[in-house]
């Protein structure tokens, strides 16, 4: 039998001013199972709380209703109060008679009072059906998985490792470093990108608490916070990395040349390769599609006889350690983690979507990232800026901003944030490479929010002579050796025609390919632009709706290096904070299954947004639903769709809600 105490708060005059407290007290006294009522000036004050504690003891109360402000305000406070009084904290309900009554009906005391009585009635009806709930403690694996080895992932992995926890970093490319490794210099300081990045890459590779899996991908993910089980697929490299010393003989001698992905087609690599000289690990992989011996093997397997291609196998012959392993296959292994950090980063927008710019049609229309490779001293041209068509040194360079950014027609409505800055950087660096270069930059707005960013873009204009023209480009076409650029200077309202040697499209950022599939595996959400969605855009920017899964870097949205690094560190702290506990305490308001009622139709498993419901086979052969409390977030979708009412939600049970509805007509 419930013994309910009702505590009505005046909240000074906030409630008492428009609600007749005496009448509410009187009505509450008559409600079923209510054995004690009292009112307080301020129930949340120390004396108010003490009064609740005393009444619980004096009147042997086992349920408490506090009629006061919104539960969003003080539910936690009063739960603690009843807990101090020796009750389970979930034997409390709040009747919200301030935000949802006295404050909105201050003009009608009579009806505000009536409403307050009914609000209390609802709470009494509900609390009578509350029962003790206990948070569960779940053990956790203090080991983190970082997906993506760009600067953000590297930072996150290093910070977690330095905090004393084991980290596994999975990167799908043959090297870590990500997009930052492709940059020549970084704005606004013009630090050499490799000079600041490669030491971090090496530090990571050598860290005794870090395990690095490059050329590997996450295949599947099961489990929940503290207890993830992740299958990782190590793609076949055809090179034994334990014996390989990275001497480089193989990739220097390999005869097969293919366009380099790392150099974005501006240069070539061999079929056995490392993407760039400072790659980590500095050990090669064999590109099986282009390797001559692999082609030969495929040819033999196809059964055709004539014109066999050469067997090659030069790398195998020259390798001093015998590390070439033609038989190696993809390998899948399972690892356990307590937290996952997603740092899958971005790729640049494919500018061929803009027919008018001629990307892909004219060799001298290139992207910003391609220009980085042309300027980089360790790039394909040794840092000499030569245009792709004829190797000439461009003297007039036109930049086009917002290619794949701020353009709803291309389904890229967002600003990519870094392009304005890198265009200014390029203008400065091109002048430094060759003082005769004249840069024209077509922009929509100059977005240079950031420390020393605005100053940087001004320097590009004032000291390096870049000419900024506000307007969009309508067309680019080839005329002889020149590219004719048609556009508009919208500040003077006139069309502009420029003859350029090189056109650089400031392509924007978009999420890396495959991120949607990964998000689906992780069961985290992504937005219409396929960027991953944070738990709260302001207050929980590196968390997701799934506990234990964190986000860092440009997979969340366009960001520059400092922001990506900061987020990597932030996500690392979140993971480390999780690992500072010995157990994870779960919210007890989760779903539960009455197996005697469950028919096994499993509609609940289909609607659960968190994949928290799985199945369980009973001894009699029936298959019924089973809730994983670690995954359940307590939305109650399952309870609403269950026809036999076999699944219910603690804290918002069928009994409680039903009692609330019916109490209104008592």
């Amino acid at each position, binding site marked *: 039998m419930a013994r309910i105490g009702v505590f009505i708060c005046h909240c000074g005059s906030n409630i008492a001013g428009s609600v007749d407290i005496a009448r509410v007290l009187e009505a509450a006294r008559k409600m079923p199972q209510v054995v004690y009522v009292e009112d307080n000036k301020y129930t949340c004050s120390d004396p108010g709380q003490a009064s609740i504690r005393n009444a619980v003891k004096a009147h042997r109360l086992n349920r408490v209703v506090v009629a006061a402000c919104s539960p969003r305000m003080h539910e936690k406070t009063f739960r603690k109060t009843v807990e101090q009084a020796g009750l389970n904290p979930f034997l409390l309900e709040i009747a919200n008679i301030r935000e949802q009554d006295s404050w909105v009906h201050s003009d009608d005391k009579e009806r505000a009072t009536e409403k307050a009585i009914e609000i209390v009635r609802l709470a009494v009806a509900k609390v009578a059906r509350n029962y003790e709930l206990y948070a569960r403690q779940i053990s956790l694996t203090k080991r983190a998985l970082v997906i993506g080895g760009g600067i953000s992932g590297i930072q996150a992995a290093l910070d977690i490792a330095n905090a004393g926890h084991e980290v596994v970093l999975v990167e799908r490319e043959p090297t870590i470093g990500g997009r930052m490794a492709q940059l020549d210099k970084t704005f606004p300081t013009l630090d050499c990108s490799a000079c600041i990045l490669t030491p971090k890459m090496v530090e990571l590779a050598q860290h005794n608490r870090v395990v690095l899996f490059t050329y590997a991908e996450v295949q599947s993910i099961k489990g929940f916070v503290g207890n993830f089980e992740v299958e990782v697929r190590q793609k076949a490299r055809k090179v034994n990395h334990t014996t390989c010393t990275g001497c480089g003989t193989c990739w220097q001698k390999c005869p097969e040349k293919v366009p380099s992905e790392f150099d974005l087609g501006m240069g070539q690599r061999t079929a056995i390769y490392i993407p760039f000289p400072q790659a980590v690990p500095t050990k090669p992989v064999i590109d099986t599609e282009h390797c001559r011996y692999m082609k030969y093997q495929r040819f033999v397997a196809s059964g055709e006889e004539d014109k066999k291609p050469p067997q090659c196998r030069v790398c195998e012959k020259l390798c001093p350690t015998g590390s070439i392993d033609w038989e190696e296959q993809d390998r899948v292994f399972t690892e356990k983690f307590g937290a996952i950090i997603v740092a899958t980063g971005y790729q640049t927008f494919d500018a061929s979507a803009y027919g008018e710019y001629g990307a892909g049609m004219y060799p001298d229309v290139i992207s910003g990232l391609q220009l980085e490779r042309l300027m980089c001293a360790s790039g394909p041209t040794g840092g000499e800026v030569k245009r792709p068509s004829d190797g000439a040194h461009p003297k007039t360079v036109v930049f086009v901003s917002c290619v794949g950014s701020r353009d709803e027609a291309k389904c890229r409505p967002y600003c990519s944030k870094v392009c304005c800055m890198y265009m200014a950087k390029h203008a400065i660096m091109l002048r430094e490479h060759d003082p005769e270069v004249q840069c024209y930059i077509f922009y929509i707005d100059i977005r240079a929010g950031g420390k020393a960013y605005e100053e940087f873009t001004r320097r590009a204009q004032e000291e390096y002579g870049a000419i900024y023209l506000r307007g969009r480009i309508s067309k680019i076409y080839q005329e002889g050796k020149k590219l004719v650029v048609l556009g508009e200077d919208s500040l003077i309202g006139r069309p502009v025609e420029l003859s350029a040697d090189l056109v650089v499209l400031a392509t924007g950022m978009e999420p890396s390919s495959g991120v949607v599939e990964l998000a689906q595996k992780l069961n985290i959400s992504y937005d219409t632009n396929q960027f991953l969605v944070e738990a709260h855009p302001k207050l929980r920017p590196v968390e997701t709706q799934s506990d234990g899964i964190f986000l860092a870097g440009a997979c969340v949205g366009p960001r520059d290096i400092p922001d990506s690094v900061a987020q990597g560190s932030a996500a690392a702290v979140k993971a480390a904070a999780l690992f500072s506990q010995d157990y994870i305490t779960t919210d007890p308001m989760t779903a539960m299954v009455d197996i*005697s*009622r469950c*028919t*096994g*139709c*499993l*509609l609940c498993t*289909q*609607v659960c947004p968190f994949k928290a419901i799985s199945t369980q086979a009973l001894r009699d*052969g029936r*298959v019924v639903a089973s809730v994983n409390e670690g995954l359940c977030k307590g939305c109650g979708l399952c309870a609403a*769709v269950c*026809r*036999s*009412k076999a699944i219910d939600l603690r804290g918002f049970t*069928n*009994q409680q809600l*039903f*009692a609330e509805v019916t109490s209104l007509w008592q």
Partner: protein
Amino acid sequence: MQDKIRAKARELLETGTVDCVIGYERATDGLTARPVFIYGTAGVDRLVFDQTCVHNLSKFLLDRRDKRTAIVAKPCDSRAINLLINEGQLARDKVYIIGVVCQGMPEVSWNRVSKEPQERCQRCPQRVPVVYDYLVGEPVEALPVTFSDVEQMENAGPAERRGFWLEQFGRCIRCHACRQACPGCYCSECFVDQLDPTWVGIRKDVTDNEMWNTIRAFHLAGRCISCNECERVCPVSIPLSLLNRKLEKDVGEFFDFQAGIKAETVPPFATFKKDEHLKGVE
């Protein structure tokens, strides 16, 4: 038809493909049919099939979940089997479906068979079972679906509709025969029988009856396969198909979904589309 069913049943029992054949036999009035369970070849000749075999037998399969069973299934019955497979109640490989082509069934009651097919059969598009292992009868084309009965009710004024249904619900005696006959109603403990909370008052009051009938219909939204057994067995002749068919119509219109057509399908309440525009929802 009957001969083919018997021959198939014999073959299935002889070869041990199944342990039992669920079909129809002649009832004691000598005119109509009733369900029969045949366990051996000796009983095979009891099987009949004609215009009086109105019952949906599929629900009997639930008592034989783990045993290999053959069943005589008309088109609507076959949809019920798909539904049960979809909802994990049956395994396809345990069921051998002897499908029969159906031209519509007459009204049948004890010792009486109507000349015209029942109204529900006149509106039924399916003439050939949607799933079967063996088909009896020549396939014919499906007919267009019509909802003129539902539309007529929709077009009546709200007060007229309310009056009509209050009268109908007022007559309900809460025998729950509709539930017992329905292949979609297989809950081990129906919400109407639950006591805490007592979802539906145990009084035979019109409001409680309304609760029962509307929620039962809604539990079959996107699941009802239009066999109309509920209405057939209703002792007070409440036009339950009018409720079920309203939901069938809306489910078809809103979600382009028909229950029981395929076993592998995602029912409308198990999924959603982010950008769907649904009538009445802003």
